[in-house]
């Protein structure tokens, strides 16, 4: 492939994709979601609606929270079809 001449334009350049992971938004949380794994059917509906994302699929297909980033909005709890997620005070 022929080389392409590039010019660096002025402006803010961030060269680390996804670097917001350096900032733990979990500290914002006042309420915490807790999953009851007996009720979880691994449908991932909570995951598709999490704005962060702060939900992880476990090896067994059920879910876990990434409390480093979960802001405690409660969407996952309201949307879970089996009511497997409880919201508790921090």
């Amino acid at each position: 492939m022929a080389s392409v001449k590039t010019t660096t334009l002025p402006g803010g350049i961030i060269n680390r994709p996804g670097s917001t992971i350096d900032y733990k938004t979990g500290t914002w949380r006042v309420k915490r979601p807790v999953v009851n794994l007996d009720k979880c059917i691994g449908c991932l509906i909570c995951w598709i609606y999490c704005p962060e994302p702060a939900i992880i699929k476990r090896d067994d297909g059920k879910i876990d929270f990434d409390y480093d980033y979960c802001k405690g909005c409660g969407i996952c709890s309201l949307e879970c079809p089996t009511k497997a997620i409880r919201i508790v005070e921090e």
Partner: protein
Amino acid sequence: MLVGEIKTIKELYGLDLIAPGHRACAGCGALIAVRQILMASKRPLIVVSATSCLEVTSTPYPQTMWKTPWVHLLFENAATAASGIEAALKVLSRKYNRQEHYIIAFGGDGGTFDIGIQALSGALERGHRFIYVCYDNEAYMNTGIQRSGATPLGAATTTSPVGTKIVGKTQQKKDLMEIVVAHRIPYAATASPSHWKDLVNKVRKAQSYDGPSFIHVIAPCTRGWYFDTSETIKVARLAVETRYWPLYEVENGRYRITHPVPNPKPLEEFLKVQRRLSHLLLPENAEILESLKAYVNERWERLQKLSACFA
């Protein structure tokens, strides 16, 4: 035209192109919509954002949530920036045999309905191959909830307050989809993050066309609409179920309602869960409520007739 229809959530797992740690409010609807759209997108992908909540919360310098190349220039020119990128990459791929890229531009409703509409119109008319996504939280949220051309009739914002002289915004919402459709682009659709399957497949469909496409997605905002952070998806779903937010597409001029709502819930169900609109249920505001209902009903009937024309 549909390639690779997404049928289950599991197919999307692992496809995230945003990282956590972004600074959007807890429960932000815009972030849910953007996250779903990016998961569905083909790769390699370049993203452009207009100045907005999305831009500000996604890139607190020197950090970025984007895991794919991303550019921000100004409030008014996301479509222009996307056009330039598309044109440049087209030349590069021809000259140097480079891989084809996909491009998505995101603008808020202020950045799209109002200040960026000229740039959007130009980009659609020139025929650039990209998706323009307007995530619509129905006001200028990032600067403190000012009314926009997308704010619905009667909604309280800081520049259209509820008082003795006026009761929220005094004009109806602009019908942006109709303006976009008038450009005769190959694909335009509305969407809601509550109906994720409908949304992700519209993204795939948009990217199957060699030309401009447009997606208008509802993005409930907990701060500006005043509802609990847990209710973002519930509110988006109510918008669809009351016919406030019809889910439809216009493919090569052919209208189709993608999610029929044969038994709509009363519009009040959508209004009462948000403090920006709940005052419309007061008896003294009955007239405004009627006008808003008429707007919603007339639009739905019109869409139904248009869909029937092309069925």
